[in-house]
Every structure is written in C-alpha cells, then in structure tokens.
C-alpha cells in the first residue's frame, strides 16, 4: 500500500488515507484492512527513526530543509502521527520535535486576529482565548475534538497540517478564513485557508515548510454562531458537521458564512447556502432552504459504513441545526 509523503498531493484513495486516523475503534480498522486487503497489522510499534529536538524555529526549518528530502517530518502533538506510525502507515526516517520551541506557544489576539502558534494545544481553547464571539466559538467547538487526554497533547496547527476531512479545526479555519503561515529556511509565506486544503489529508504545505502559526480573524461583536456535528459515538470522527456564522443587522442576516466539514475531501464554505441567507430575516423555512442548498452543493465522500447519499442527508440536517443554534 502507498503512504502519502508529507505535503505531496497524490491520488491515495479515501480508505487508505482514513487509516491515519486516531480515535477510530480498532474493530473498524480491521474491517477496513480485511476489505481493502492490506493484511493484518503485524506490529503496534513504530519503525525506527532519528529524533531531533530543535530549540528555535530557525533550527527547526534548517533541519526540515536538510531532512525533508530524506522523509523527515515534524512532530507536534503526535495524536495522529504516532498512531499512524504504530500501524506502520507512516514510517518517517526523522522526526523533528517542535514541542520545546517556546515561541511556537504564542496564543494572542491583536486588533484584528487571533494568532495560534504551532504548539498551542486543543485544551487551551476550553476557556475563551479571545474576547467576543471568536473565543466562545472556539470553546464550543473544541469539546467535539476527540477526548480530553487527546486534547491536552494535540495541537490546533497540527490538525490543520494533518487535514483530516472531519477535523473541526479545519472547518473553523475554512469557514472563518484563517491565514496560515508556512515557514521554511527561505522565509515565511502566508496561505489563505481556501487555498490551503487541497485534498484528503493533503495541503498546500511543502515538505520543507513548518506550519508555524495560524491567524483567525476576530469576529465583530454581535456575530452569532452555531456548530453541529453528527457521529455515532462521542469523540469519534464526524460523518458531517456544519458551522454557521452570521450577524443580524436591521432584522436581516448579514455576512453569512456556512462551512461544511467531514462530508467532502476538504472542509469549505458553501456560497450556494450563503446566498439564500443573505439579506433575509432568520427563520425556520429559510434555514431549511439553505440547508437543502448546502446538501445539494456537496460531492459527498463515501465509505463502507456511510453511503454518499446518507452523508448528503446528514449535511442537510447538521446545516439546519447549526443555523438554528446560531439564531437569535
């Protein structure tokens, strides 16, 4: 079987990529293996690698420049990479552990955006980290990410770099229009979220680039939001999820943002649904119409347990529920 090289888009099929996921009950992994003919896992122990502990971003990107061609990868929270290594789906020759780099722990809001450094853990968002609606939005979403002991290690930026289709943070980044800083030995480039996610577990990040930080625009006072996710077990991967964000001005919806995740290879905003909402008074039938438009607009991914058309119906439901949660 093929294993995706870091940052390198390829045609790896959905089932293959999905095996990277942590949190998936063992039995389903084994069903996937049986169905896809991957054989049985012979070991739960990671393959050997060389371990590097840079003390600064400069040192980290210098190491990446040197080691990325030799299958060197960044280790942050490790809550997705380490299980992939245990299953030998990932066998990096080098791990560059960025956990000791203090500057990557930055979590601060300036006038316009919240900056989230590469080492900021999910658990940091349990209490609002920024004034106004953004801090509350992040605190409401974080509770859906795996379980608490995973959230104490896993990182926001690691989730973006991993780009699981069902990642809550990827949906937040896509819906709110995050800006992602990719740092290499050559400098830093900033990538808009809509250009960052390019496929299942595939991003615009180059092999030798470190996702150093993400910036989320602060939401104006009065911004309303609703998040809804559906899965069969608490903490499991979403079959589909939706994030609705809008303001109500003079009784009508302004600046609507509807993001859907888990349903397609990448989370994204759905202009088809947003168009229906803009300038209209928030009400039940409008939400149903927008949810229907969202469901019609997507090209759902499929797996043995979840047919595409079922997922499309779940998208309609979660989008409507997210809009209702956001409603005044």
């Amino acid at each position: 079987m093929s294993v995706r090289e870091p940052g390198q888009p390829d045609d790896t099929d959905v089932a293959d990529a999905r095996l990277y996921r942590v949190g998936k009950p063992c039995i389903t992994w084994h069903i996937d293996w049986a169905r896809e003919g991957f054989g049985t896992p012979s070991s739960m122990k990671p393959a050997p690698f060389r371990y590097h502990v840079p003390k600064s971003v400069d040192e980290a990107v210098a190491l990446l420049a040197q080691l990325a061609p030799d299958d060197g990868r960044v280790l942050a929270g490790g809550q997705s990479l380490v299980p992939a290594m245990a299953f030998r789906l990932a066998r990096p020759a080098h791990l560059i552990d960025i956990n000791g780099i203090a500057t990557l722990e930055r979590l601060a809001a300036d006038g316009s955006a919240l900056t989230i450094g590469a080492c900021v853990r999910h658990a940091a968002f349990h209490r609002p980290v920024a004034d106004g609606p953004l801090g509350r939005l992040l605190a409401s979403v974080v509770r859906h990410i795996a379980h608490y002991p995973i959230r104490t290690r896993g990182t926001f930026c690691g989730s973006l770099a991993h780009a699981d289709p069902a990642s809550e943070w990827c949906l937040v980044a896509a819906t709110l229009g995050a800006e992602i800083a990719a740092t290499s030995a050559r400098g830093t480039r900033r990538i808009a979220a809509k250009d960052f996610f390019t496929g299942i577990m595939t991003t615009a990040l180059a092999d030798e680039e470190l996702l150093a930080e993400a910036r989320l625009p602060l939401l104006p006072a009065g911004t309303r939001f609703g998040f809804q996710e559906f899965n069969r077990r608490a903490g499991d991967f979403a079959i589909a999820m939706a994030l609705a964000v809008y303001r109500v001005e003079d009784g009508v919806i302004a600046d609507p943002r509807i993001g859907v995740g888990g349903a397609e290879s990448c989370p994204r905003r759905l202009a088809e649904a947003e168009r229906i909402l803009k300038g209209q008074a928030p009400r039940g039938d409008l939400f149903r119409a927008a949810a229907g438009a969202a469901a019609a607009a997507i090209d759902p991914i499929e797996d043995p347990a979840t047919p595409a058309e079922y997922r499309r119906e779940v998208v309609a439901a979660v989008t409507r529920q997210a809009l209702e949660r956001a409603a005044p």
Partner: protein
Amino acid sequence: MIEKRDVTLTINGTTHRVHVESRRTLVDVIRDDCGLTGTHAGCEHGVCGSCTVILDDTPVRACLMFAVQAEGHRIRTVEGLAEGDVLHPLQRAFMAHHGLQCGFCTPGFLMLATSVLERDPHIGDEELIDLLASNLCRCTGYQNIIKAVRAAAQEMRSRG
C-alpha cells in the same frame, strides 16, 4: 541504524535513567524499562485510554508520545497514588462501588479521574461523564465508575 538515547524520566518522584530507542513509546518504557507495570498498554493507538498517565498535572495517552519526549516532565502513574499502605480515595471508592471487574482499564481510569478531580473536585455530573467517556471499559458499563468517582470527589472535597 537504530538510534538509542539516554533518557531520564521522573516517575512518581523517582528518577529513572534508561537507554532506549527513540521510537519507544512512553508506556512501553514505563513498563519494560522502569518496571512499573501498573500502567497498561491496550490498543496502542490512543483509543482506549488504558495507558493514561499524568504528565505535569494533565492526563495524556502514554502510547501516543515517545519516552524521549517525557524528559524533564513530571510523570505520575498508578503506583504513585497510594501513600504507603493507605490507598488513594479514588482507589478505595473504585473498590467500594465495584468500579472495576477485570481491572485492565482501571489504572487508566484512576489516573484520568485523579487529574480531573485534582483540577476541579466540584466538577458537575455532565462534565464528569463527558471526561470519563475518554477511556474504554468493557466490564462495568461505566455506571459504577461514575459512582466511584463521584464518591471520591465528595471525599476529596470534604478534605479540602
């Protein structure tokens, strides 16, 4: 070439100096190299929570970090809960409320619950149940685990 490193781990206040491969997970080193077999390795990919230990006051999956990463951190395992012959309130409550049957998941639940109650002994039921859903138990059906943690919380609150 297989890389080995000298690693110093501080577990339950005791220093352990080990020479291990970088690829060895924290749970394996705690068990095999430090001899503390109270921490259990279950699914080894972060799902079951049997290997939960407390790292600098927060619960972590010891199968999802490498031992080399734990250097310089304070690690607590189930062996560190009792004080001499006196069991920790959570250990006593698990016995009193039948919070275990086969016992495989118990060290992980004890460390998870310890960190949760140390942080907030006044934790509400809804949040407590959500947190206890982090770990898997295939015997008890969770109800007795929840009862045990509630009872221990009460005792820890009354002690201040």
